[in-house]
C-alpha cells in the first residue's frame, strides 16, 4: 500500500480543459474547450439483443440514467413497431417527471444557484449548497434533500429501482402501480409543486430583485444568438417525454418541426481536429464555423432553448412564470445564457405540475401497462428531452432483434459548439491587452455551468465539481497563465 499526494493539475489532465490563445495585441484570438471521448460504445452494443439497451445505455453514466432508459425504450417501441397502452406511457412520463424534479432541484441548489444566491464574486469555497444554506436558512437544505428522497422513492415504485430504474420495456412497462401507490405519488407531486413555487419565489427575491445580477444575466458577455431546439406536444408546448422536435431560428421563427425518425435529415455532426467530441449542427444550414446568427447551423438545446423553441408550457403555473420570464427579459427568444437558470426552475415547476396531472388520473394505476411486440424488428429512433438537451437513440437490428448498429446523440453534445462559443465570449470580455482579469475562472465557469454540461456521457471521470483547467497562451504559444479550480 502506498500513500500518495496527487497534484490537482495531474488529475485534470485529460478532463475538461480550456485553451485560450491570445493574438499579438494580447486579446483573445481563439478558444478551445477539449473533452476526451469514451470509446467503443457501438462495438460494445453490436451483437447484443436490443431489449438489453434500456438497461445498458442507462449505465453510460450515473447522472441521467432515467433519460437514457426512456430514449432507449422509445427507440425499442419504434424498432418493434409497438405502441405502449395509455397507462404504460403515463407511467413512463410520471417516472420521468419525478426524475426532472430531482435533477433540476439538485442543479439549482447545488450548482447553478450558489453563484447567484451566495454571489458570483464570493470565494469558491462558499459558492455551494452550504453557502446557500448559510444565506437562506437551514430548512432549505432539508427541503432539497427531502425532495430528492421522495422523488427517488417515486422512481423506485415505478421503475423498480431508485437509481438505474429497469422497468421500461419495448411496448410499455414491466409492472403497474397500485391505487395506493398512485395516491402516495399524488401527495408527493403536490409537495413538489409547493417546493417548485418556493424555488421560483427564492429566485425572484434573491436574483431578480438584485439589479447587478439582472445586469450580469443580460450582459453581452453571456449572450449568444443561435437556433434553439426542443420537443413539443401537438400544441407546441414543452414536453420532456414525447412529441416532435421543433427548431426555431434566432428570431424565434419556426425553422423545422420533425418526427424523431427524421433526425438524420436535420442534424449532422462536424469534426474538429483538436477534439474527439463531434459538433452537431443543422444540416440544412451547414457548418460555418463557430459563428452565431441565422446563417449558422449551430443550435442549442438547454432548458432555455426548450422554452424558446416552444410556444408555452402545458401547465398553468409554469405557463404564468414562462410569460413572466419573457416579459422581464424583453420577449422571445431569450439569448441570455444565464437565464437558463430561470428556465430550469420553470421546467421544475412544469415537471411537478405534470406529475400531479398524471397522478390524478386513475388510469395511471391500470394494470394494462404493456403491449407485447409481435412484429419483426428493423430500425427504431427514440427521442426524449434529457435535462441537458435533446437525447437521441437510434438502433438497427436484424430480424431477431440483435443489434447491427447503434447511434446516440447525447444531451450535452448538442450544446458543445454553443458552450465553446460562450466560453470564448466570456474570455473576450475579461482579457484585454494581455491582462487577465481576476475572477476569470469563476466567470467562465458560470457560462459553462449554465449548461450543466453532462460530460459523463462524453467523458466519464470528471473528478470534481467543475474541474476545469484554463491555459492562456500568447501569440507565440507560450503559456501566460494557468488556472484551475482547487479540488478539495
Amino acid at each position, binding site marked *: *500500500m*502506498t*500513500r*500518495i499526494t*496527487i497534484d490537482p493539475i*495531474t*488529475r485534470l*489532465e485529460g478532463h475538461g480543459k480550456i485553451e485560450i490563445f491570445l493574438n499579438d495585441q494580447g486579446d483573445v484570438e481563439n478558444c478551445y474547450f477539449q473533452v*476526451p*471521448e*469514451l*470509446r*467503443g*460504445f457501438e462495438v*460494445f452494443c453490436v451483437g447484443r439483443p436490443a431489449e438489453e439497451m434500456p438497461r*445498458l445505455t442507462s*449505465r*453510460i*453514466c*450515473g*447522472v441521467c440514467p432515467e433519460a437514457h432508459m426512456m430514449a432507449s425504450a422509445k427507440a425499442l417501441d419504434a424498432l418493434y413497431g409497438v405502441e405502449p397502452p395509455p397507462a404504460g406511457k403515463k407511467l413512463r412520463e410520471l417516472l420521468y417527471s419525478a426524475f426532472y424534479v430531482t435533477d433540476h432541484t*439538485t*442543479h439549482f441548489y*447545488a*450548482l447553478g444557484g450558489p453563484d447567484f444566491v451566495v454571489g458570483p464574486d464570493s470565494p469558491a469555497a462558499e459558492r*455551494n*449548497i*452550504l453557502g446557500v*444554506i448559510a444565506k437562506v436558512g*437551514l*430548512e432549505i*437544505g*432539508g*427541503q432539497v*434533500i*427531502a425532495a*430528492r*428522497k421522495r422523488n*427517488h422513492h417515486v422512481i423506485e415504485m415505478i421503475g423498480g429501482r*431508485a*437509481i*438505474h430504474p429497469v422497468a421500461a420495456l419495448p411496448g410499455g412497462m414491466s409492472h403497474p402501480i397500485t391505487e395506493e401507490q398512485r395516491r402516495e405519488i399524488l401527495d408527493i407531486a403536490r*409537495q413538489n409543486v*409547493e*417546493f417548485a413555487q*418556493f424555488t421560483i419565489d427564492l429566485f425572484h427575491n434573491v436574483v431578480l430583485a438584485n439589479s447587478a445580477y439582472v445586469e450580469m444575466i443580460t450582459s453581452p458577455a453571456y449572450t449568444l444568438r443561435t437556433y434553439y431546439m426542443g420537443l413539443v406536444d401537438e400544441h407546441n408546448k414543452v414536453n420532456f417525454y414525447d412529441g416532435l422536435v421543433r427548431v426555431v431560428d434566432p428570431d424565434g421563427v419556426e425553422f423545422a418541426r420533425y418526427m424523431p425518425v427524421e433526425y438524420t435529415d436535420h442534424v449532422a455532426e462536424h469534426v474538429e481536429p483538436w477534439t474527439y467530441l463531434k459538433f452537431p449542427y443543422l444540416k440544412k444550414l451547414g457548418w460555418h464555423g463557430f459563428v452565431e446568427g441565422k446563417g449558422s447551423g449551430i443550435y442549442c438545446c438547454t432548458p432555455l432553448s426548450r422554452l424558446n423553441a416552444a410556444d408555452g408550457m402545458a401547465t398553468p403555473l409554469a405557463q404564468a412564470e414562462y410569460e413572466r420570464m419573457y416579459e422581464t427579459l424583453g420577449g422571445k427568444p431569450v439569448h441570455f445564457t444565464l437565464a437558463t437558470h430561470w428556465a430550469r426552475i420553470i421546467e421544475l415547476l412544469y415537471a411537478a405540475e405534470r406529475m400531479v396531472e398524471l397522478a390524478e388520473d386513475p388510469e395511471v394505476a391500470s394494470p394494462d401497462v404493456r403491449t407485447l411486440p409481435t412484429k419483426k424488428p428493423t430500425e427504431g429512433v427514440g427521442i426524449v428531452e434529457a435535462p441537458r438537451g435533446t437525447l437521441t437513440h437510434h438502433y438497427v437490428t436484424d430480424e431477431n432483434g440483435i443489434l447491427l448498429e447503434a447511434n446516440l446523440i447525447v444531451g450535452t453534445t448538442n450544446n458543445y459548439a454553443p458552450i465553446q462559443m460562450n466560453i470564448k465570449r466570456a474570455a473576450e470580455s475579461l482579457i484585454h491587452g494581455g491582462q487577465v482579469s481576476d475572477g476569470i475562472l469563476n466567470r467562465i465557469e458560470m457560462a459553462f455551468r449554465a449548461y*450543466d*454540461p*453532462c460530460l*459523463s456521457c462524453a467523458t*466519464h*471521470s*470528471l*473528478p*470534481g*465539481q*467543475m*474541474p476545469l483547467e484554463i491555459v492562456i497562451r500568447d501569440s507565440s504559444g507560450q503559456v501566460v497563465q494557468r488556472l484551475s479550480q482547487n*479540488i*478539495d
Partner: protein
Amino acid sequence: MIASAAQLHQPVAPGPPRPGGAVVIGIGNPILSDDGIGWRVAEQVEAVLRARGDALAGQRVHVRRMCLGGLALAEALVGYEHAVLIDAILTGSTRPGTVYRFGISDLPATLNTASSHDMTLAGALATLRRLGAPLPPDNGIRVIAIEAEDVWTFGEACTPRVARSVARAVQAVLDELAARPAGQTASADL
C-alpha cells in the same frame, strides 16, 4: 413541507441498518473497463461475507454497488457508523492495479466519489451533517482505491493488471472492516 428530522435520518436503501452497521460501496461504471473495478471488488467482498456463513453478515455489513458520486453517495452513507468505499483512481504515477487506502480527510478525488453535477463527497457529507443527518464520523469512512489503466473504453472486463488486483483489494476492504473503531469490532459481524 419542511423535511422532518425523521425523514432525513433514514437511509435511502437498503433499509435501516442496525446501530454499528457498516456499508461497503463499490463505485464506478460496470461497463467501462477498469472503472468497474469497484463493482468487481464489492461483489467478491459480498461473496466472502456470505461464504463465512455468519447470520449477522447480512445485517451488520451491507454491500452495495453504485455509479454515483457527490450527494447521492453521501446520502447512501446515512445511518451507518462505518463505510468503506471502493473506487478506481487515475494518478498515472503508479502501476495499474496498485491498491491504495485513504481516510476521508485525505480523500483524493477518485474517479467517482465526486460528481460534476452537484458537489464533492466531502462537500456533500458536510452538507448532510449540517442538516443533522447521522453519518459515519470521518475516521469511520475509508476509501480503497485501485489504480486504473483504461477508463475510456466500454467493456465489462477490467484490464489484466487491474483484474489481478481484486484479491488484494478485497483483503484491504476486509482489513478495514476488521479494524473498525473500538466498540464496533468486526469479528462478530463478519
